[in-house]
């Protein structure tokens, strides 16, 4: 698809090479998005979006410049390349140490997402009927105030060409969806979602991923749980044992392990927006981040993960990198610029939110490896505690130490059994203390890669599509129930 752009990008790269730049890359990105949203059985939004353009990154005099344009004509691209060089020269006015850019094999390749059913070819009727059927079931009670079901699909064609000779084309496909329901009794309102909150679950797969969610089969249970929450007891304010469900573990990994192990954060280059990291370079291979059963890998090759791709946006091949090994902090997410600081090569995590953004370090599939427990056995093994299910709120400090997360629903565990439902449940902790209190992780039967399509970072803001393979896990002596 990007064939007609190849020569134009090559011309841009040649132009910059002729100017003697240290390095340059040009990225063409064509992104199609389709969104469907059904509220209370009415289609209140269906939209398609097409976004196409080219971003040009230049390293000159040891400093970076980037310019991007929607105008794909050769003249506009050459002008944009010249502007990127001018911007790099402006950056050089403040540079103290020149950028060290790690060497990289120049790949020539074409990567494609594997899928069975192209969601853009599935009839609109089929998609709408599925979403309407969900909300028909969800709204079937006087206590239900709002029901909403949605799907989103992305088709991305990318072409990357660099002064080093890399020519990489990628065709990525993403599918996702889910639903939520709001119950109301005149005083209280409670929300419940499936399969995850804030849009559901996402993957680099086709429409078969939507079908495998069995959305309709879960609608009645979710509706009834939402209604039950109206009469649930508030989460007690205490310290106890907690078991966290898979999707909430995804959020836990995301906020307290994914972000703090981004090397750009650890080196201070994200301070102005998202903050830094307590996992500073001096702690690498020393910090006991978690208990011995905690193993976390950043794996951009996980089959179907939302953070799965062929190459990152500076031409580094997708790979699996250890982050936490038997509880010890052993690795960062890195780029070609940051990896040399810790005397390593990039592990391929630089991704841009489209043609008009620079690549920055992003999580890929930041996976908590499965443990040995069946969930049923884990609950039986827990005398007293609370089970936390599906994220509702999230907050963490700017070095990723103090966190407080809330969930849609929780259940008390009494004598090894789930008992009363709890509403507005929260838990809070300090990251390494919390992960060192992890004494059980469920096995691969409970492991799922949860797609998160809205990870914010950078200025201007970029939204990344990332994922976390997780299974339910148990933590001891956790403070719960701080709600106001």
């Amino acid at each position, binding site marked *: 698809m990007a064939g007609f752009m190849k020569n134009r990008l090559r011309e841009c790269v040649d132009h910059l090479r002729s100017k003697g730049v240290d390095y340059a890359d040009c990225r063409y990105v064509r992104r199609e998005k389709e969104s469907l949203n059904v509220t209370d059985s009415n289609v*209140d939004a269906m939209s398609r979006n097409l976004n196409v353009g080219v971003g040009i990154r230049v390293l000159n005099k040891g400093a*970076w410049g980037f310019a991007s344009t929607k105008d794909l004509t050769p003249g506009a691209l050459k002008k944009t390349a010249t502007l990127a060089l001018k911007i790099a020269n*402006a950056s050089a006015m403040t540079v103290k140490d020149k950028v060290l850019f790690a060497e990289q094999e120049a790949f020539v390749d074409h990567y494609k997402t594997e899928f069975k059913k192209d969601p853009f070819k599935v009839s609109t009727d089929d998609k709408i009927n599925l979403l309407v059927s969900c909300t028909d079931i969800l709204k079937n009670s006087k206590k239900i105030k709002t029901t909403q079901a949605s799907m989103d699909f992305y088709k991305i064609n990318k072409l990357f060409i660099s002064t080093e000779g890399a020519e990489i084309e990628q065709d990525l496909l993403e599918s996702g969806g889910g639903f939520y329901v709001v119950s109301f009794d005149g005083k209280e309102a409670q929300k419940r979602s499936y399969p995850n909150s804030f849009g559901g679950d996402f993957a680099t797969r086709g429409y078969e991923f939507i079908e495998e969610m069995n959305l309709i089969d879960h609608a009645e249970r979710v509706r009834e749980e939402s209604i039950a929450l109206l009469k649930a007891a508030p989460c007690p304010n205490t310290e106890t044992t907690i078991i966290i469900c898979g999707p909430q573990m995804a959020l836990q990994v995301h906020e307290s392990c994914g972000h703090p192990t981004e090397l750009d954060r650890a080196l201070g280059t994200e301070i102005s927006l998202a903050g830094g990291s307590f996992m500073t370079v001096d702690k690498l291979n020393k910090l006991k981040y978690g208990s011995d059963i905690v193993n976390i890998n950043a794996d951009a090759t996980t089959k179907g993960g939302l953070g799965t791709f062929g190459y990152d946006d500076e031409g580094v091949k997708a790979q699996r990198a250890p982050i936490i090994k038997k509880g010890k902090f052993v690795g960062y997410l890195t780029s070609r610029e940051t990896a040399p600081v810790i005397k390593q090569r990039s592990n391929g995590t630089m991704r841009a939110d489209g043609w008009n953004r620079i690549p920055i370090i992003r999580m890929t599939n930041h996976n908590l490896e499965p443990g040995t427990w069946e969930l049923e056995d884990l609950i039986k093994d827990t005398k007293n505690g609370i089970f936390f299910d599906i994220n509702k709120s999230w907050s963490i400090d700017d070095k990723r130490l103090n966190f407080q997360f809330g969930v849609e629903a929780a259940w008390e565990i009494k004598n090894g059994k789930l008992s009363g439902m709890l509403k507005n449940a929260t838990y809070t902790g300090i990251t390494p203390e919390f992960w060192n209190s992890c004494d059980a992780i469920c096995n691969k039967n409970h492991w799922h890669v949860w797609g998160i399509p809205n990870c914010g970072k950078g200025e201007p803001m970029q939204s990344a599509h990332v994922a976390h393979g997780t299974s339910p896990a148990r933590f001891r002596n956790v403070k719960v129930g701080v709600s106001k």
Partner: protein
Amino acid sequence: MIGKEKLFKQLEKVLDKSKADQTEIVYIGRESGLSRFANSYIHQNVYEDNSQLFFRTVLGKKVGVSSSNLLNLSDLNKCLNDSIEIAKTQPENPNFPGLPKPAKYKELNTFDETTAKFSPNERAKAVKKIIAENNRKKFTVAGSLSTGIGEIAVLNSLGVRAYQPISSASVNMISMSDTSSGYATSISRKVSDLDVVKLAKIAVEKCDRSQNPIQVEPGEYEVILEPAAVTEMLVWMNFVGFGSKPFQQNMSFLSGNIGKKITSDKITIYDNGLDEKSMSFPFDFEGVPKQKVIFIGNGVAKGVVYDSTAALKDKTKSTGHAVTPDENNEGAFGLNIFMAPGTAKRDQMISNVKKGILVTRFHYLNGFIDQRNSVLTGMTRDGTFLIENGEIKSGIKNLRFTDSFARCLGSTIAISKETERINSWWDAIGCTTVPTLHLGSFKFSGKTDF
């Protein structure tokens, strides 16, 4: 920049070809540059030239939306037809009121030539001044300086023709020592309004004063919340409480409380896109003129913002707060949030605190914990101080708060006369304009190590 006449001429050609019953076109064009710095040098420096064009077409009560950034005539016609094809596949939406009719909107001056011409070199020179102020104290600094221009147009087949050019400039900076940090920020339509040296001095002073912070135990304290901190809270309350969707879903803390007193009577919060003290903008993404909407007036819950679809549901009229067509199922949203000033002076407010905490800003707030009770949680950041006997005694390590927005505003003691314009999520078409607050009760629920 294409310009009003040329843009209308191009878009009317496409509008005239539409075979839909009603057709709406929203155009958003933007050229912007941003220099980002950290560890006292520019590490990211970017420019973007982009635009987005949305078609919303209506067949009876069937609605389709399609958008693209490809703007030649054939691509536009394709996008229009795509929108009609989407509409054809839809069931009737009984809640759709039809597109708005034309209405006169206020003339506002929202464009500055100097800002439009501000170059990457000029941005770098401004950043060098910020770095120089930090070098004096041997602090490092991180932040960003951005300038941009754009134009927004809304046309529809019922005769709506709305157009507005805009410029914007914003800066934020965090000065850092080994043990502390300090923050300053500003936003304006004019880059010449950004006094980067003055702002750098504020950030440096906060960083300097908060060095070697002491640990204060969580608990209930009096607080002085500076404008950036007030903004963080208001942005979240706007998101979960002041829009039509959470209100109609009964998730908002205003739902069921209209006419009831919910905060101190000193508190008035409203949206006003027409007030040039804000990043003003005269109409919404349906071309409906913006109106001032009071959310909380002298402590009493008053109302929320509406677009035309949400307004129909509540049997009222749009207040001019529609979002872009691809997001309009999310309901109406305020972009120019104000908290009304009081009469106090900032220094006097601090001197009236016997024992309390001054918060420069918050980090990573979240308001989804218990929306109906307006419960928020978040961390302090970049300049948190202990006040004792009316004086700032020392910097303190950061704290987590978890409290009800309405409850803590119920304890308002004083509000500053001066307000500041603070950048929020909406950059070029909105911001918050807020004072400093002195609250009698604010609940800190946790602490961290720095």
